[in-house]
């Protein structure tokens, strides 16, 4: 079975993805990362975990099941997140990414990590 770093490297090889990070959902700390230089991984991890936790609570309050995939959209790129147990898999992608393909890769990786 692939380790977290191998899974992140594979995910980061998807065209358009600039990097990925595995975050502890509880405290937003980095567990493993595969990021391009210049990206503040710690800040991204903390914010992505916080957003994911907030949406998890909101969906629970709305009587829905837990989020399985989140996408923060912006004109110059997107942040993708897939909760997996006590961890959150986060990927940063440019505007040229194939979100559908990235989503499949992330859900696959999240399933293995969970």
């Amino acid at each position, binding site marked *: 079975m692939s380790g977290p770093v191998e899974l992140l490297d594979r995910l980061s090889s998807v065209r358009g993805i600039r990097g990925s990070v595995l975050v502890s959902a509880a405290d937003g700390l980095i567990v493993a990362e595969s990021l391009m230089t210049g*990206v*503040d991984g710690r*800040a*991204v991890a903390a*914010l*992505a975990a*916080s*957003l994911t936790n*907030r*949406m998890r*609570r*909101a*969906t629970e*309050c*709305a*009587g*829905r*099941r*837990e*989020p*399985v*995939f*989140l*996408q*923060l*959209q*912006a*004109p*110059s*790129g*997107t*942040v993708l997140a897939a909760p997996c147990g006590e961890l959150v898999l986060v990927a*940063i992608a440019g505007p040229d990414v194939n979100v559908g393909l990235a989503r499949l890769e992330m859900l696959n990786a999240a399933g293995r990590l969970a």
Partner: protein
Amino acid sequence: MSDDIRGMTAELAADPESLVFLDLGEALRRRGQLDAAYKVMRTGLARYPELARAHDLCARILCDRGEPDRAFEAWVTALQFDAGLVSAHKGLGFLYYQAGDLASAETHLAYAAQADPDDAGSVAALERVHADRRAGGQADSGTEEASAPGASAATSGELSLSAGPPVRLSASDRLPASPPLTFSFDEAAPSPADEAVFTGLDGGADGLLLLDANGLRLGGGLRDPDGRDVADEVAALLAGVSKEAARTARLLSLGEWSGLAVECGDGNLFLSAPTDSTLLLTVRGLDVPMGRVARFADRASAAARVWLERGP
């Protein structure tokens, strides 16, 4: 103590900021543990002083405790934060009726009945007030003594609330001799304003929720799969999401965030920001693909902007 109450108490102890205090307060009220329910609500209101639904529940507890004066104050406060809250109008209608102010009772009950024509309780109560006014002949001329100086009713059905002293309410000898009027406060119907934002769009009362930066509902509505109104709780939980999303996008030099798509096991949610200070939540089932949810959210955002510019 039931398992539900025990569970909610534990949840609240673990997370004092949780909105579970609303459910816990209601559960305790239904069990007749009014002092405990009141204590829970006071603690919750200290954290969420602008949550209309919390003031409304507090009023119901006070009503059950036989404190109509304080219940009146709590309902007036609830309407200051949500002028269209139907249950607060019903409560005030009930109290005004008890005080013998049939004109004010009629105003509040008419609003409640108009907002939710399917609520047999409001409709029947309004008919009862009409009948009493006809029988007693005490239309407008006899209302000054008991009317609340802190609340005046506009002809449009919306309340214009001033900060006047609360009325002293008591079961006076002016109370009609007919059988007591009873109300059920257990329904949670959307107010007309809730749906007005998204007029013409599917989901104006359930599945489209517009909130401000503080997590307070501006319009729309949201119900869980069991039909329970969860709009206020979800709105409160979403407060601050806009700032976090903006910070994340800015940190990564992605530009202004335009949407947050959330895929759940049983539904699709889409968050967008119609304006800098508002947030729109669109909720649909899995049968609606995320792409369509996002396009629908765009239309709802446009409607929200028009509504915000025009003024509620």
